[in-house]
């Protein structure tokens, strides 16, 4: 693919930019540039990430390695066409020490283009495009979230083990959705299952009746799907209203239902998804996180909040190790890469490509909560063949 050829070459060229990056002052506050959506469709995600991040830093007395923290919040509008100029504003205009963002994969592409040119340290707290830590491969780019592949691949084996042999997959016709299905289909067909049909819905349409009729006539053993936000809610509710849930179980990536439990209501009961987090996880870190988050913001955290929180904890740990000294960029990157967290989501560390190594949980919605059925894949590392740093 042409895009990937171009990007792998970019990887070779990017490293030189790092060295020339300017040395920041070390005694002033640590500047965190947040490039997240605060308007439009993805507002809720941007706010949850911001809340989680700020919670983590507040717990440290609003300091990172002994230095005060200053936030620069920029609305990314989830608009990819403005991503490079917004990123450039944070890096060159506001001269932040770290850029945290984005939510949207298209925006991530635009940001990473500038991250490559400037060597700015970028932590991705959501966007799941695989290329970010694979073909685009940059030492200055970290991710505290997931890649589409990581969350969907484990479901392939789960689906097969549950006895499903013929599955219909359905998602929006956009990059993130297709990457997600690819992960699932890879694992499911490797086990010996068959993908009866892959259905792509025009993005961002939420008019699903025609597709549900198609699924009903195909009569697969189960349906695997990736939708998110309002589309996720619409799909799950329409699927239940069409009476398909009983005859063909609905499987999905965790984003299908994440943050949407209240809006799903009864329609969500019994839906099985895989994700790197569930609010009901019974480890100490999660229990104290959930109660602290509820105290601070008056609502249950979701995986987006955890991703923000872990981004904050990653910075806390790294800057404590360095005593707040961010002047030596190479050392800073090295320390960040070696961060290990007892995260609310379980143990969290980073691979050579700066991608999280984490558990993927199989979750089922019962009584309006994501209950953990099992660990679908323990300490799963994403292969990222094109990026071995």
């Amino acid at each position, binding site marked *: 693919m042409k895009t990937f050829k171009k990007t792998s070459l970019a990887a070779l060229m990017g490293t030189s930019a790092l060295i020339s990056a300017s040395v920041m002052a070390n005694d002033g506050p640590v500047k965190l540039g947040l490039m997240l959506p605060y*308007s*439009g*469709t*993805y*507002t*809720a*995600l*941007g*706010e949850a990430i911001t809340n989680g991040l700020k919670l983590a830093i507040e717990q440290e007395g609003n300091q990172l390695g002994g230095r005060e923290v200053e936030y620069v919040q920029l609305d990314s509008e989830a608009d990819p066409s403005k991503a490079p100029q917004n990123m450039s504003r944070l890096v060159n205009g506001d001269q932040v020490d770290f850029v945290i963002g984005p939510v949207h994969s298209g925006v991530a592409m635009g940001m990473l283009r500038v991250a490559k040119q400037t060597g700015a340290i970028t932590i991705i707290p959501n966007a799941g495009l695989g290329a970010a830590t694979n073909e685009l491969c940059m030492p200055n780019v970290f991710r505290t979230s997931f890649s589409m592949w990581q969350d969907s691949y484990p479901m392939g084996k789960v689906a097969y083990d549950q006895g499903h042999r013929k599955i219909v997959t359905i998602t929006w*016709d956009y990059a993130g959705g297709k990457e997600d299905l690819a992960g699932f289909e890879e694992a499911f067909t490797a086990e010996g299952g068959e993908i009866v049909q892959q*259905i*792509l*819905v*025009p*993005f*961002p*349409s*939420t*008019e699903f*009746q*025609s*597709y*549900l*009729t*198609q699924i*009903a*006539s195909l*009569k697969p053993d189960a349906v695997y799907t990736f939708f998110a*936000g*309002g*589309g*996720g*809610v*619409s799909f799950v*509710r329409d699927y239940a*209203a*069409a*009476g*398909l849930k009983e*005859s063909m179980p609905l499987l999905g990536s965790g984003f299908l239902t994440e*943050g*949407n439990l*209240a*809006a*799903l*209501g009864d329609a969500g009961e019994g839906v099985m998804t895989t994700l790197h987090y569930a609010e009901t996880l019974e480890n100490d870190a999660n229990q104290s996180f959930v109660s602290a988050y509820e105290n601070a913001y008056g609502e249950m955290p979701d995986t987006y909040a955890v991703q923000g929180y872990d981004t904050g904890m990653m910075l806390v740990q790294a800057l404590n190790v360095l005593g707040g000294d961010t002047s030596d960029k190479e050392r800073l990157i090295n320390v960040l890469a070696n961060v290990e967290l007892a995260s609310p989501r379980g143990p969290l560390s980073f691979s050579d490509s700066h991608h999280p190594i984490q558990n993927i949980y199989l979750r089922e919605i019962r009584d309006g909560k994501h209950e953990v059925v099992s660990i679908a894949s323990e300490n799963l590392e994403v292969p990222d063949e094109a990026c071995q740093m």
Partner: protein
Amino acid sequence: MDLAFFSVQLLNGLQYGLLLFLIASGLTLIFGIMGIINLAHGAMYMIGAYLVYDLTLRLGNFWLAIMVAIPIAIALGLVIERLFLDTLYKRDHLYQVLLTFGLILVLNEAQRIIWGGNVHRVVVPAPFDFSIQLTDNMQYSVYRLFVMGVCLALAGVIYWVIRHTRLGIIIRAGAVNRDMVEGLGINVRTLFTLIFSVGVALTAFAGMIAAPLTSIAPGMGDSILITCFVVVVIGGIGSIKGAFWGAIIIGMATTFGAVLIPSLASMVIYLIMAAVLLVKPRGLFA
């Protein structure tokens, strides 16, 4: 494609088309009579959905919520018409496009401030909260049938008002020759205020009645707006009859396009529009 599959898809297309008609009718009414192009149309649809969500929570009853929300939508239309549009009738369409584009920004952001960024739902209200068996493994929500009925009934009412009432005569005359109507002693200004409010209310009502069938989320109006434009352009801008058949065509094309030509599904409505304009530059029923 067997017969049962085909019939169910026909039903899906019809249902989607009828809903589209309801959403687009306000747009075409406002344009046809007032010559105003309203980009904030999608935002009105969104506001209708959010209003009914909010009021259902407060009042505990969906039908009651609709009764309260409709006057609010009419009032919103009234305020916008008097405050902003009044000065624009004699000006270029460009100014209407820009002003209503500005309104989109304001209304979308107001939605975020008032209701936040989370996704919400409205529960399917009684007595329509059950399904009927359609095929061996597929059910159909009775509420969808109800919505189809409402859309059809409203289409009938609008048609009747425009064809057979005194108001309808004035409206049709006003659309053809504004000055003449004014010369006959009819207050066109009041007429315009009325039409705009009704148009906004129709759109918001579409959002309300569709709310239990969809998810209520930020930006939900933006995606419906362009589809409405296509409907209106195909049918012929300003024609209620055109909007009706345009909506049915688009409903069917979306439904069958998704199954028959999936690779072109996202473009099919635009292709149809281009084809129609090639043959009839002013739409099918203009």
